[in-house]
């Protein structure tokens, strides 16, 4: 494999990083008034990469032709599928931001640049074929994310979120590095292929510790219980467009990364990590559901909702079968649509003068004051709860089906039972919007970008989404097959 072929495989990352560097200089010289032009340029770059990657996903790319830089990087269909979701979610984060920051004149030209750099990092994460590529991608994403969380410098909550995210993120990176160094020490290699060969005939004590520490570090990044403590605080404090970004793109990247480590590096020892994943899955579902019940802030509620959803996603990983990984990818795709939609709806909760509103009580009677917004939000909530005619149900269905087929009937049964708890608080929001006396505080106008994104995600989660199932399933199967072929 020569360097030209390798460079061809990392073309999307090259485009994104070069665009990021150029836009960084533009941001410095042209200043904040150029921020909308920079956002547009960032969206164009993301769109170009989206179409570049879409080709490899549709072709179901796999095998040695997708390995770049001597196994450090994998541009297969699995990575491509995750990248499509990441690019789409990052694009959404760029589109919703100007209206939010612009109102108070805090739209800085660095915002799109940071999103682009975070996206490069996430691209590297999902394509990692080596523990070092993994770590570099993860840190590249995390460093941008810490700054983004603290983006409203004059807002104490935003600064607090940034600091909290930084301290706990650094701790998670430390745990991850510790696990990686143990793995390296006991297997003598950092490449996933080498680790796979080394652990083929059983784990020794040191590798086992390494494996568990790596998974603990990754659990921090995907905010799975018991490493979820930072999520509600960071999601509440960070500016809402940034929260929408955190809940979608980095989560996809971290889940895809955990899947790749589990299947590709430790695939032969599935029994060892499966119990960790099962525990994290069930704990996330239950804690996410119970924690959300008492919340009065919609962003905190959605943070718990994302913890809850990670639990369902991990059920797909626990199967450790191609079917399970395919179900995980389908669930992730639907989850991204629902999350982006819900956060756009939160962004549209504004007072008369445009100040953002985050209280759940302010949603009271929204169906009478703002019917369109209320109906879209109701649909998203029903979909998150997994009520059948909506698309959220399909994600849960494929995940549980894969679990049953992998002989994890008990896990599937407990998961289904626990998803009922989650339905309570989703439907409570619908009840507040449709049956309570109007609070009539949400009166602000929203711009067309928000309406467009809300409409797109509402259409995706609506029963119309089922038209996508065959196509989505085929792409996800191809992606999962690529992962298991290399493994």
């Amino acid at each position, binding site marked *: 494999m020569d*360097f030209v072929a390798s460079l061809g495989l990392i073309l999307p990352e090259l485009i994104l990083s070069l665009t990021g*560097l150029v836009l*960084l*200089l533009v*941001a*410095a*010289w042209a200043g904040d008034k150029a921020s909308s032009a920079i956002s547009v340029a960032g969206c164009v770059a993301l769109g170009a990469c989206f179409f570049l990657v879409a080709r490899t996903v549709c072709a179901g790319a796999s095998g040695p032709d997708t390995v770049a830089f001597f196994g450090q990087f994998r541009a297969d269909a699995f990575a491509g599928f995750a990248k499509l979701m990441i690019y789409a979610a990052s694009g959404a984060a760029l589109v919703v931001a100007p209206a939010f920051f612009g109102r108070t004149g805090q739209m800085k030209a660095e915002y799109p640049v940071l999103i682009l750099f975070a996206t490069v990092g996430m691209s590297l994460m999902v394509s990692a074929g080596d523990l070092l590529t993994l770590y570099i991608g993860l840190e590249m994403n995390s460093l941008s994310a810490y700054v983004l969380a603290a983006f409203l410098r004059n807002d104490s909550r935003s600064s607090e979120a940034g600091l909290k995210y930084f301290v706990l993120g650094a*701790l998670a990176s430390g*745990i991850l590095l510790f696990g990686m160094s143990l793995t390296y020490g006991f297997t003598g290699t950092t490449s996933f292929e080498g680790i796979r060969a080394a652990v083929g005939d059983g784990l020794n004590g040191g590798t*086992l*510790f390494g*494996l*568990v*520490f790596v*998974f*603990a570090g990754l659990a921090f990044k995907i905010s799975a219980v*018991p*490493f979820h*403590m930072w999520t509600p605080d960071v999601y509440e404090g960070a500016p809402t467009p940034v929260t929408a970004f955190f809940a979608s793109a980095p989560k996809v990247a971290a889940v895809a990364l955990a899947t790749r480590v589990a299947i590709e590096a430790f695939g032969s020892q599935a*029994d*060892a*990590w499966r*119990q*960790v994943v099962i*525990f*994290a899955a069930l704990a996330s579902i239950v804690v996410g559901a119970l924690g959300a019940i008492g919340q009065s802030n919609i962003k905190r509620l959605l943070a718990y909702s994302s913890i809850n959803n990670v639990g369902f996603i991990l059920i797909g990983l626990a199967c450790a079968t191609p079917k399970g990984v395919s179900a995980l990818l389908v669930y992730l795709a639907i989850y991204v649509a629902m999350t982006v939609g819900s956060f756009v709806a939160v962004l549209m909760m504004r007072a008369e003068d445009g100040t953002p509103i985050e209280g759940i009580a302010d949603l009271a009677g929204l169906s009478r004051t703002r019917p369109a917004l209320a109906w879209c939000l109701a649909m998203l909530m029903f979909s998150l709860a997994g009520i059948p005619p909506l698309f959220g149900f399909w994600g849960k269905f494929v995940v549980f089906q894969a679990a049953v087929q992998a002989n994890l009937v008990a896990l599937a049964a407990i998961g289904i039972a626990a998803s009922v708890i989650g339905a309570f608080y989703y439907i409570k929001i619908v009840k507040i919007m449709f049956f309570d006396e109007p609070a009539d505080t949400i009166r602000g106008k929203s711009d067309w970008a928000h309406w467009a994104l809300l409409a797109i995600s509402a259409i995706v989660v609506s029963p119309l989404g089922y038209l996508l199932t065959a196509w989505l399933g085929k792409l996800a199967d191809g992606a999962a097959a690529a992962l298991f072929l290399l493994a």
Partner: protein
Amino acid sequence: MVDLEQYLPILIFLLIAGGLSAAFVFLPMGVARLTGTHNPSAEKLSEYECGFPAFEDPRSQFDVRFYLIAILFIIFDLEAAFLFPWAVSLDLTGWPGWITMMVFLFELAVGLAYAWKKGALEWE
């Protein structure tokens, strides 16, 4: 007979989780107990500054500009730390190694240009 050994991974996982949460709760308490003023008296609590009464509050804020300089210093210090091993192993890495380092230097140069233009290098 259930083979308990197969549950070692989940045990380690829970120990990490439990250990971390316990550390967050109890470590500050323990540290405060061991290092805090256990038996405070007025004399012990008074400040000491070379025999004088303190002139001013020691917890004065200092300028964020120091942090900026420190961060920029660390970046270029690390760059130098990378350059040494690169330079001595260039005969092994060849052109790919050379190009990679030039890309790295270029990226740092872009960062420096950004910081310069933003005024991070100006004291006043």
